[in-house]
């Protein structure tokens, strides 16, 4: 447990110092402010489509930090030094998942508030959006981390990461955007299920990917 805390706090500190934390927030706000220019200032149209558009923005924002999640530490030998100490790669990925979500999920949920205001979303939609993001951002973080472990060490890994992650993110987008027009809460439960699955497999799949990439 202490090990997990040490690793996660280092990862969070590294993300903070690299100022990579601002990237997803700035991206979300930029997309939200560009969207009305593209579709026109029609209030009903913005209200009806804005929530789903913010989900797409959140999904794409989750791909931005992918190339700094694993590759720099792999190249600097940090992952090898951790492995030398008998700490499993699964533990490394789990710690990184916690740190990555803390640096990605809550800031994104915060940025959604001004973004929703830009699109004139109503109160109920904003609540559903925030609830959906609370449940869905762990999955987005896990997915980003998973493709980061798979593509670390490859050239032009950023583009490849996008191609790998987007098909896997389709269920998250369907259920996530589905929560907005769904009064029964079923979509939120499906989103939670997909999120749980991704969060549960990422430490193991990511750990195996790091081990396989060690040479």
């Amino acid at each position, binding site marked *: 447990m202490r*090990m997990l805390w040490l690793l996660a706090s*280092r990862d969070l500190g*590294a993300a903070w*110092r690299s100022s990579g934390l601002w990237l997803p927030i700035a991206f979300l706000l930029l997309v939200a402010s560009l969207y009305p220019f593209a579709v026109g200032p029609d209030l009903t149209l913005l209200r009806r489509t804005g929530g789903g558009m913010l989900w797409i923005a959140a999904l794409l924002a989750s791909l931005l930090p992918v190339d700094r999640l694993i590759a720099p530490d792999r*190249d*600097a*030998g940090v992952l*090898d030094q951790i492995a*030398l100490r008998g700490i499993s790669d699964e533990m490394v990925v789990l710690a990184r998942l916690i740190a990555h979500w803390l640096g990605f999920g809550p800031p994104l949920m915060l940025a959604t508030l001004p973004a929703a205001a830009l699109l004139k979303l109503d109160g109920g939609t904003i609540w559903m959006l925030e609830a959906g993001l609370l449940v869905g951002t762990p999955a987005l973080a896990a997915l980003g981390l998973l493709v980061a472990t798979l593509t670390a060490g490859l050239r032009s890994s950023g583009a490849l990461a996008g191609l790998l992650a987007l098909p896997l993110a389709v269920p998250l987008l369907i259920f996530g955007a589905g929560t907005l027009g769904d009064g029964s809460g079923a979509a939120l439960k499906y989103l939670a299920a997909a999120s749980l699955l991704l969060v549960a497999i990422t430490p193991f799949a990511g750990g195996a990917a790091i081990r396989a990439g*060690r040479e």
Partner: protein
Amino acid sequence: MSGAGLHLSDVACLRGGRMLFRGVSLSLNAGASALLTGPNGVGKSSLLRLCAGLLPAFSGTIKRTGAVALADERLALDSELPLARALDFWARLDDSADGAVAAALNAMTLAPLADVPVRMLSTGQRKRAMLARVIASGAPIWLLDEPGNGLDTASLDLLGAAVAAHLAAGGIVVTASHQPLPLGAPVTLSLTDHLPDPAEWDA
């Protein structure tokens, strides 16, 4: 540190579909050291990674008693952090004694640079910082890959003193080096003696 040991028996290494060496045996107990020699590409770094457990051996067995510290070509220190804090992360992970980092910095005369960000260090200073990381780890088995590269004469003496102190304390040092280092009476292992027989391998 007594009781540390590193024992390789009949180890072969296969990398990228190519047999690098085979039949390597080495037995080191507390206070012993080994020097790996051979031309570039013969597999010295691979053998160190095998000893560290980062690579699986193709055949043979490797038995380690005690923790391992590895210094290869990669610094593994956070470049944005001040040197002392970057070293402190590893010391905390290793549960090193209080003051281990300060002592390691002193041993490598890096104490005046403790507050300098790692990215500002020169090549030789980075190498010394890496050795400080190894010293601070408190691990009995040191694996040093070309530890003398980029070090000036004074720093080489520091490295020699650190290695000698480690061996005197019952540690084990395996180094791949082109420079003469005060390793006591090292077991010299020339990997050119362990090249695979091409005929046998092609068959």
